[in-house]
């Protein structure tokens, strides 16, 4: 299991092995939702807030 830094609080975030691009992780320290931008090497960014609205 690897680790990356939380872009919000700087704490380490544990990453599981089958990490997928687009996956949303929760920072165990600050609780921020983090989007996996790249899996290898791992790159995290704050996940965008998105309204849950759908088309036709």
């Amino acid at each position, binding site marked *: 299991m690897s680790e990356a830094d939380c872009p919000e609080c700087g704490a380490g975030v544990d990453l599981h092995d089958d990490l997928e691009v687009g996956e949303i992780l929760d920072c165990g320290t600050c609780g921020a939702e983090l*989007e996996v931008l790249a899996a290898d090497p791992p790159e995290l960014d704050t996940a965008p807030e998105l309204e*849950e*609205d759908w*088309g036709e």
Partner: protein
Amino acid sequence: MTEHDSQTRARRRQHRTADRTAPPNPQRRLRADGGQPPVVVKIGGANAVDPEGAVDDIASLVDGDREVVVVHGGSTAVDDTLERMDIEPTYVETPGGVTGRFTDAETMEVFAMVMAGKLNTELTTLFRNAGVDAVGLSGVDGGLLTGPRKSAVRVLEDGKKKIKRGDHSGKITDVNSDLLTTLLNDGYTPVVSVPMLGEDDDEVLPVNADADRSAAAVAGALGAELVVLTDVAGIYADPDDPETLIDSAATPAELESVKAAAEGFMTKKVMAATEALEGGATAVHVGDANRDAPVSSALDGAGTKIE
């Protein structure tokens, strides 16, 4: 909902101020006959909903000089054509548990074909056969339904929360009510269809939008009464008990109880109704598409009235 005012039109207007014939503020304008606000009718796309009754009823309203704008859906017809073209739609589940179709580029193309080409042409033709001088428009035409494109959606995939990008959907923030007003003034009945016009970083493109909310946006922009036709008689306090049809909700508290009562697809109708009222609609009626004279009876108080 603000008045449509793209750079293009603004530029054009400088040259043509003398030519312009639309009233300066079409919102909540009074008719020359001192009469009623326009009616925006949302006709469903569900297979259970037969438009013929609504078409004849709307023809009578227009004949009686009521201004009507029709907005239609039709996602099942999109599904049918996707299948016919051997395109496997991607269904995604939202974190809230709602299942929806992901609109990738190929699906978007089919969506525009079916909505603006097939269904809109069919419905416009039905109206013309009923004596209504119908003009079909998509949300792209004249920037009729415009707003930011949304590419990213939150989904649940194999139990994992994910951000999925490449969706072609959007949120309507501007309605070109001038275009509708001009057509209504000339005696036409606009028949409006999604797609809407999505604003991306440096371009605009056709994107998906919910037809109920599109109708709500139009009703808000025109200060109109909105009639949402569906395949049930209205909103029920208990969907399993036909005796519990909610007649009306006229206070915020009553609206809250309607929101609480609405389940499943009806949630979207209530959400659209709320948006319409917040946007400037005078009232919203949710009524049964399959009864006689579905639009005028909804206007007369059948179904559920929210104001």
